[in-house]
């Protein structure tokens, strides 16, 4: 099969095909960036939500957890933890988060351990706000079940 393809044909497919794919990719990138605010409810991105995201990064939470399916697979998915542990109620979830973060690391022998991050009450609330905001992103019906 490759006998019929010459070097210059292969070269043209590379440059032509590559440039074509790149152009479509760039065009779709612009469209996606345009659609993200609506799909993620950017209007609800309060300073608390942004502060929560910074805390998420500062403590390398993605080093153990997944968030919308991306991250490490050592600890549970957190996109729908608001529904799973907070029954989709802000007060319930924040109370849960305060208790949970304070209780780490759990004293259960050989269970995987979450470190104690020593966050303040306000910081835990910001983290909760960030996770609540994340839970409402339109991710094409993902995750498939409440268990993530």
């Amino acid at each position, binding site marked *: 099969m490759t006998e019929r393809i010459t070097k210059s044909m292969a070269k043209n497919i590379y440059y032509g095909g590559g440039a074509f794919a790149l152009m479509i990719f760039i065009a779709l990138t612009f469209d996606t960036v345009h659609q993200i605010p609506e799909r993620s409810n950017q209007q609800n991105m309060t300073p608390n939500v942004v502060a929560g995201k910074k805390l998420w990064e*500062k403590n390398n939470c993605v080093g153990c957890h*997944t968030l919308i399916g991306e991250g490490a697979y050592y600890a549970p998915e957190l996109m729908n933890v608001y529904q799973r542990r907070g029954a989709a109620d802000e007060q319930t979830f924040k109370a849960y988060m305060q208790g949970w973060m304070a209780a780490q690391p759990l004293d259960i022998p050989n269970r995987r351990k979450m470190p104690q991050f020593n966050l303040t009450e306000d910081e835990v609330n910001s983290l909760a706000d960030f996770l609540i905001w994340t839970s409402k992103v339109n991710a094409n019906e993902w995750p498939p079940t409440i268990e993530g």
Partner: protein
Amino acid sequence: MKYSSQMVAKPYFIFALVLLAGEILFGLLMGVQYIWGDFLFPLVPFNVLRMVHTNLLIVLLLFGFMGATYYLVPEETESELWSPKLAIITFWIFAAAGVATILGYLFVPYATLTEITFNELLPTMGREFLEQPLPTKVGIVIVVLSYILNVGMTVLKGRKTVITTVLLTGLLGLAVFFLFAFYVPDNLIADKFFWWFTVHLWVEATWELILGAILAFVLIKTTGVDREHIDKWLYLIIAMTMVSGILGTGHHFFYMGAPEYWLWIGSISSAVEPVPFLLMILFAFSMARDRKIQHDNEMALTWAKGTAVMAFLGAGVWGFFHTLAPVNMFTHGTQLTAAHGHLSFYGAYVMIVFTVISYAMPILRGRPHGNSKKAQKVELTSFWMMNIGMFGLTLALSAAGLVQIFDQRVGTDLIGFMESQQSIEGIYTVRLAFGVLVFTGLLTYFYSFFVKEEA
């Protein structure tokens, strides 16, 4: 060795192998912590082990690519390297920055690390694989730019070949897409979207150009096949890479907040992604079959063929398993992703580094005909140990992913993440055993360097 400046490749190769040992060692520690959560805790929490494991991988591959480049560019351009001194200086800068970063991960709590490295100025930390402090990221840019300058100047003054052009294109792409590591929007979804510009477009586009160029070089040297013929194959492979890989980024945009059309675009393009890897197998095996010379270094060709096969399995087959959107709905964020990640990084990138080291190191050590038969026999044993180990580990992780899916995502009798993980403990033990086999294989490989030459 035809050009004395090729010698600068040697420290790069050696350091890449040292980092590989560290990378696998940390992988084993994680494997243990997966089963016994108290292991090393709170001394080294899981996220730290993982950061060291993945960052060592990225850095060792960069060292391997750089060593490969410094070795092959003088021969391809038929001229000495533009500045061997610059290559040595960047080696020490990169090595020092790499070691300092790893020590920072290990001995400073991550939150403190963000504070003392000026992350507030331009927050870039705490994202998967791009955890490096700002000074390290800036250092990487400087090192990569000086590397590209060195290679670019050498190419400009010397003979231009398809291999050097493709290699340089890959390196430029690597540099350009790394810049997205500095762009962290406040909106998590926009952040994730552009994060993939570095992560996916490195491993599934620009790095594949580098891989193709190195593979083509080693095949020319070990088979003696006509360059025109090799060039055609190289173009064909990278053409399919570009056509499928760029829009294939879409398979990461299915379920993270990006629009619906990615479900189609990502599925269709990435269904084509195994093709370049299939071509790579045809390439390596038909060049080996039609070889004009019988090179005494048989291991180099063995690694080259092995790279093509394992890259096809890891990147092609294991990628395809979960790349269609309806399947990915259930596999997204499970151990299946880890299975694919392990076999593809090993098969495509770690193995191409082994390939070029296996070909070039004996020459750099004054053995133009390769290592002795006895040393090659040891190397062959290590080849199989590592390949079987990695494949077994991948099968175990795949099984773990399947159990996860049926525990948490399919049917009505669902159980939670932690409970599901407990039910997978046996499989994780199997994974760990295969990991130990990989590490033993690497030690055997190291030993092959010290087998005495026959008189």
